[in-house]
């Protein structure tokens, strides 16, 4: 244990040969520096052990990795990771994980993450659902005829039916999006919906040189679903979703 309250905020791991110079201010405004150890370089910044203001520091974490990712292949460490000291970074993060890290860096080299999300025009979606689902249309008529207090359970039932239909649409649209985009990517992951209006959400690992090709596929998908959904196409990001390794002995997630 160190006797003061200094510690290191850990952003990510890159290959030593690749070590980028990051100018974006780090967590709590500290400069980002690099801990070198054998074939690896770890992006860190000084911090104390006080609490992190998540809303602000998420942004710093993100910006640092974004900049590093433009210059190197970086394995992001999960947000909020603070380690004791440089020694801890070398001995606890790097040393026991040399093989995993080497393999991940090799696998992800030259590849970026692109996220594609489809968002429903919710009003249109719900309208379509009411139109084509007689059970929902009937229940809706009944609920509308009742005073608010009397219709509580009917409302829940109605909402549940609608939610099930939305889920059904979501399944179909996720399948469609993956079918169209996956062939242009090295890997794909479906992500959980981020909101009630999410049609699909997926992360793709794409060769840097093939981003244009992938973008063309996203464009075509956009035309295919035009009006029903809006696509949010974001990136290039460091491969957060594909460096999702659990390097703990016991796989206890942080809380």
């Amino acid at each position, binding site marked *: 244990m160190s006797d003061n309250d200094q510690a290191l905020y850990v952003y990510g791991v890159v290959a030593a040969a690749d070590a980028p110079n990051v100018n974006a201010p780090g967590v709590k405004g500290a400069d980002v520096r690099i801990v070198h150890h054998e074939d690896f370089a770890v992006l860190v910044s000084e911090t104390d052990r006080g609490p992190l203001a*998540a809303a602000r520091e998420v942004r710093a974490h993100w910006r640092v990795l974004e900049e590093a990712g433009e210059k190197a292949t970086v394995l992001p460490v999960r947000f909020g990771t603070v380690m*004791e000291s440089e020694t801890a970074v070398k001995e606890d993060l790097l040393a026991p994980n040399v093989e995993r890290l080497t393999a991940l860096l090799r696998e992800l080299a030259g590849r970026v993450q692109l996220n594609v999300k489809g968002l429903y025009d919710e009003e249109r979606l719900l309208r379509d659902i009411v139109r084509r689902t007689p059970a929902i249309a009937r229940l809706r008529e009944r609920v509308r005829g009742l005073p608010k207090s009397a219709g509580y359970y009917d409302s829940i039932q109605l909402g549940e039916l609608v939610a099930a239909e939305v889920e059904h649409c979501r399944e179909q649209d996720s399948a469609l999006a993956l079918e169209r985009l996956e062939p242009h990517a090295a890997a794909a992951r479906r992500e*959980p919906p981020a909101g*009630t209006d999410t049609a699909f959400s997926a992360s793709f690992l794409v060769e840097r040189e093939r981003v244009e090709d992938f973008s063309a596929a996203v464009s075509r998908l956009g035309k295919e679903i035009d009006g029903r959904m809006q696509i949010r196409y974001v990136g290039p*990001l460091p491969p957060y979703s594909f460096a999702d390794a659990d390097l703990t002995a016991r796989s206890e997630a942080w809380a």
Partner: protein
Amino acid sequence: MSVARATPRGYLERPRPSGLADVIDVILDKGMVIDAYIRVSLIGIEILTIDARIVIASVDTYLRFAEAVNRMDIVHTDESQGLPEIMETITSGGAKSKTKGAIEGVKEKLPGGGDDKEKSERRPRRRSSRSGKDEE
């Protein structure tokens, strides 16, 4: 097209650098998990995670859906497509904003650091009465 916010042409030709709202779930959820880190507390993380993972199968969501569906004026003439579309846009002017509000209300809580561009991108109608510091 009856979508209120028209999609700019060519917006999918290449990926955009992201606003935080677009990647918040990725950043909170993904990345390597390592041993021997110090547990520091995270102030405000609850708001962020709740926001990133809205529970879709909840009574709250059901009621919101029910309310949204109930507010809509739907003309039941299934066979004709053209006319009802037009009528809806006329009759649902008031209801529309309320429906949107009900659904977007959930997202409203997303805290931000103070990067105005990102916010206005996502919520064009948001007023400038932000209080970024208070959110933390």
